[in-house]
């Protein structure tokens, strides 16, 4: 699975996710990557989120929208919202994977409960093109 989240100079957010799914999948199995609110979500009122991991758990937990809702209704900051969903709710369900998320102030969270996540990030304040794989 691959994904991207962005905040542009006009203050707008967007999110995108794409995948081949699980190896050897059968019976028309679908994951979360094409489900708005589970694998992908964006609202200028909260954040943009793209997810990766075992899709079945991200579907049941409606992960992307859940993170945004913690910000919109729980008045939580991006880091707190992603930590609650990725490191508490998903872990309790044995849902392995991670999210990338950006809020309307340009804060970036790359949160995962698996061994690693291929990830990259940058901003107008950062000359670097930052890359990481493991914790």
């Amino acid at each position, binding site marked *: 699975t691959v994904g991207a989240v*962005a905040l542009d100079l006009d203050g707008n957010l967007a999110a995108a996710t794409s995948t081949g*799914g699980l190896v050897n999948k059968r019976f028309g199995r679908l994951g979360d990557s094409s489900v708005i609110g589970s694998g992908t979500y964006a609202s200028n009122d909260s954040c943009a989120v793209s997810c990766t991991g075992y899709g079945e758990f991200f579907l049941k937990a409606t992960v992307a929208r859940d993170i945004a809702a913690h910000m919109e209704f729980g008045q939580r900051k991006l880091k707190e919202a992603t930590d609650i969903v990725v490191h508490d709710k998903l872990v309790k369900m044995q849902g392995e994977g991670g999210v990338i998320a950006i809020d309307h102030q340009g804060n970036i969270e790359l949160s995962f409960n698996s061994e690693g996540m291929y990830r990259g990030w940058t901003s107008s304040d950062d000359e670097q093109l930052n890359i990481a794989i493991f914790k």
Partner: protein
Amino acid sequence: NKFALAIHGGAGTLLPSEITPQKEAEINTALQGVLYAAKKCLSEGGSALEAVEIAVTALEDCPLFNAGKGAVMAHDGSYEMEASIMSGETLEAGAVAGIRHIKNPIQLARKIHDDEDFVYLHGKGALDYARDYDLEEVEDDYFFTESRHKQWLLARETNQMLVDHDGERKFG
């Protein structure tokens, strides 16, 4: 005003010991190229929607990641993909599932996003829709990579499903 950008190429239980320095360098270079292209769009005043479409298109074109070229194989050896995109400004969204033969599924999701009649299309119907927009079609062998084929053979032996990042782990 500032812009910000993040990308991912998947998560899983791949262990540090299971990734060679050469593979790690290839991944770093690929991710840097994706960041550079999408950052250029944003720094030139491009929209967040354009930037995420550029980034995911580049990730789909790279055989190292499980999307587009390099996608994993389904049980019958085919390549069935899914993608979605959403605008935070308008809450418009586009999504496609069970799509085959389209080189960049995220570009199909973007067409659906821009079409006020639809949000989510799947399967053969989604392919018919893609043909109306002349999105690039490819045969299955375009998506083939040796490493995914090996994963597929392993998964078929155990008749289980695998996350593309799983080293030896299996998911049933």
